[in-house]
Structures are given as C-alpha cells and as structure tokens.
C-alpha cells in the first residue's frame, strides 16, 4: 500500500487552503470563514481598504467546521471594505439621483460591512441584531485612503453637495433605509466549491429595489 500511494502524484493545495493553514499555524485566532470571505472580497470582488473588526467573543461561534458553534451570545466578526462599485442604492435615493443627474460613479465610495458566515452554521435573529449593534460601534472616519472621489466640474460639485446634504438628512429620517450590511455565506457543504454568496441585509422594512 505504501508503495502505490507514493506513486500517485499529490495535488498542490490551493492558495486559499495554504493561506488558511498558515494563518492558523501562526496563531491567528480568526476563523477560516472570515479569512476565506476576506480573500474572496479582495481578489474576486476587488474591494479595497479591507479591515477585520473582531469583537473577541466570536471565535467559537464562527467556525462550523468544528461543529462547536454553540456560542450565540457574542457578536460575529465583521469585515469592512470599500467596493469598486456601489453595491446597493435605495430606490428613492436612485430617483433623487436621477432627478439631479448624478451618476453612481460620481459619488464618494462608501465603506460597507460584511458578516462572514458559512453554510450549516446556526443563526438567529439575536445574532443578526448583535451584528447590526456592533456595526454601529465600528463606524470609521475615512482618512482619504482607498479610492478618492472622481474629479468633477463646479456645476456637478454643487449637485453632489446637495446630494450629500440630503444623504445626511435621510440618515436621521431613515428615508433611504437605515443601517445595512452584507451577509456573506461560504459554501462549505458536501461538494462545497468555495462559492461565496452575498445578500444585502437592512434593518427595518426597506422597500425592494425593483417593484
């Protein structure tokens, strides 16, 4: 048996597997799910300024591979970053922008939060809510890092100013939706191919984009 096994050429582990293995070997406490989602955002969706926001209480919660996902009290680890294109625009916001003649690409890029999860992981409303509550604490002031807003002429700059003012107002009235984040789910089931799917989750009743 030993001789036949040595004849079979061994496959090189994937770059992702190596990354996860090296991270855990170096004593990094982040779960494999978080690393995989971060990797996916960085290399497949080309997000920039990626950060991991660890609440510290979630190490046991976010790793379904161990089957020890019983800790439901802690907030899950969050990832945040700046997507290359806007991921979500509220329908009323879109209408306003159309009226002003503002294109999505004219706007300042916005930081978006992501909850990494894996298929088969237990989930509950409490966990979802704790992610939203944790997100409020992590609001970061952008220091001009990442993608800068594109150069525009004076007329457009004025329209954009009006837009940002309106945006500030809507944050209070929740007219254009309240807090939002992305729920990322890694396919880890049988025959899991490492696909990551993303869903926009918003607090409250926010009308759908196409209706």
């Amino acid at each position: 048996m030993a001789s036949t096994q040595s004849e079979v050429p061994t496959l090189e582990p994937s770059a992702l597997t190596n990354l996860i293995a090296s991270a855990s070997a170096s004593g990094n406490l982040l779960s494999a799910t978080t690393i995989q989602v971060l990797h996916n955002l960085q290399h497949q969706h080309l997000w920039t300024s990626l950060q991991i926001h660890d609440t510290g209480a979630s190490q046991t919660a976010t790793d379904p591979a161990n089957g020890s996902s019983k800790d439901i009290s802690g907030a899950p680890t969050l990832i945040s970053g700046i997507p290359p294109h806007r991921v979500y625009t509220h329908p009323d916001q879109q209408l306003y922008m159309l009226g002003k003649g503002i294109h999505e690409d004219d706007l300042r890029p916005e930081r978006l939060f992501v909850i990494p999860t894996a298929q088969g992981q237990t989930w509950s409303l409490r966990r979802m809510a704790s992610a939203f509550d944790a997100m409020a604490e992590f609001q970061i002031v952008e220091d001009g890092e990442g993608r800068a807003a594109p150069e525009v002429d004076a007329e457009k700059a004025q329209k954009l100013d009006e837009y940002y003012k309106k945006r500030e107002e809507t944050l209070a009235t929740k007219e254009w939706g309240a807090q939002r984040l992305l729920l990322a789910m890694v396919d880890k089931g049988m025959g899991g191919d490492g696909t990551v799917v993303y869903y926009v989750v918003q607090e409250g009743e926010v009308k759908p984009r196409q209706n």
Partner: protein
Amino acid sequence: MDQPTLPIPISFISGRYLLFSIDDVTYLRREYNTCGVLIGTLPQIPQQNVFLGLPLELMPEEARLLVDKGVACIVDEAKAHDGMQSLLEEDRRQYLRELESQGLHATRILAERKDQQRDQKFKEKSDKKAATARAAAKAGGGDKHDSPATPANDSPASVADFFDDSASAKASTSTVPEQIYAVTPTTSYPPLPRPSTSSNNILARPDVPLSYPLFAHLQSRGYFLSPGLRFGCQYVAYPGDPLRFHSHFLVVSAEWDQEIDLMDIIIGGRLGTGVKKGFLLGGPQLSREQAESEIERTESVRTFSIEWAGM
C-alpha cells in the same frame, strides 16, 4: 361611506373566523388594512374559484388584532342561532313571505329585461333587413337579372325568424313565471336581533401563532397582510390595498433565539429578489415567558429586509 355598528361581530364557525356582511368587509378593508380572504363560491359549481364572494375568512391574527383594538368581537355562531327557535311563529312567516316577495320581484325584473332585449334585437334585425332590401332595390335598377334573387333568398329566413321570436316571446310574457328565484340572505340580522357584546355568545380572544407580534407590527405600519402560502412564506406584505399595489415583502417570523438555517435566508432572499420583492425576517425580542402580553411583544419587534446583493 356609512360606518357599521361597532363592534363588528365575527362569526366563529367550526374553527374559522368569518364575516358575512359586505358592509363590515368593506369597512375593515378601508379603515383597518384588513383584507381577509373571500371564500364563498357557488354551491353547485365549487370548482369555479377564480372569483369568490362572501363569506370572508379572517386569519386568527386578523381576528385577534381587531378584537384587541375593540373593533370586533368573536361570536359563537351556533349559540347565536339558538334564538331562531324563540322567534314568534308569526314573525317567522312574515319573514318567509318577505323573502318570497323579494324573489318574485327579482324574477319579474329579470323577465322584463329579457323581453326588452328581445325587442331590441328584433328591431335591429328588421331595420337591417329593410336597409338591405332598399340597397337591393337600388342595385336592381341597374341589373334586372340579379334584383329578384336577393329578396327571394332573404324572405324565407326572415319569416322563420319572425315566427321563432314571436312564439317564444308570447310564451314568456303571457304566463306568470313558474319558477320564483330563491333569495338566500347573507346575514341573519333582519329576523334576529344583532348580537350584542354583553350577551353570553361572545367568545374569548382568538389564540394566535408565535408570529402574531410581527403581524401586528407590520399592520400598525400600514401594511396589508395576506397569507403567504403561494410564496412559501408566512405573510405577503402590501404597502397599500392589494388591488392597487404590488407586494413589497415575503414575511417570515422567528423567535429571538430560534435557530435559523442560513440556507433559509438565502432561499427567501433569492426567491424574493426573483419576484421583485424583499424577504423580511423579523420577530419580537421578548419570548412569551418574558412578556406579559402580546402587545408588549409587538413593541419589541425588530425586522430585517434581505435582498440578493447581485455579486
């Protein structure tokens, strides 16, 4: 816009909450976002179920919310109809005679309308014939061979038509209609007094599923909710009257610590996006043990709208 006398009696019959008065149904729809589901069909043709009529069936949640608001009360229908026996014999006969005269009236009106239609048709036909005859006579002036052919072809048919029509018309108008339409009243309040709230026919508030707080929460925000079986959810939420708006959400309720399969969120989110709706997941933060009332639970509801991110 007349308002029915409150509280509106909701008939509880073999486990269902039903409304039989169209005034109550329209009032609740107009003022309290409550649509219910029309379930009445034709007794002879129950498979004809595209357009249904009274009675209106309410979900237990809808009935409970109306009772909690003091707009309605639940009436034990079987008990309420015990009164039928205590009706005076004379009153009963009087009521039956009234129903019969209503039926006779309806039959007469229908017969008259039929006659009118027939006369109208006959008149149109004869006008047409006269016109064609004139046209034929005109054409006949030019060509002598064709002119006799047209009236000859036409006249036997017209004679037959005439006989056919007049014969049947004579039969229906001259005789008293043999079959009087039976009138089936939708409510029993004319013969019986309207059930009063103080009477002992009133039942307790309906028992509701765990999803009631989310239901009440969305109702209070002006959403119209209907049962969600057709979209595989608990409720479908419309931002206004379902006749005027497309629905916004597929609603699923969960308890605060209830385990949710993440795959169910993906399924709901994807289905919702596929049918241009959002998937709304929500529930009360307080469990039934923690809260004193469903009202308290309703106040603690938090909801999350989910859509596919498209990436």
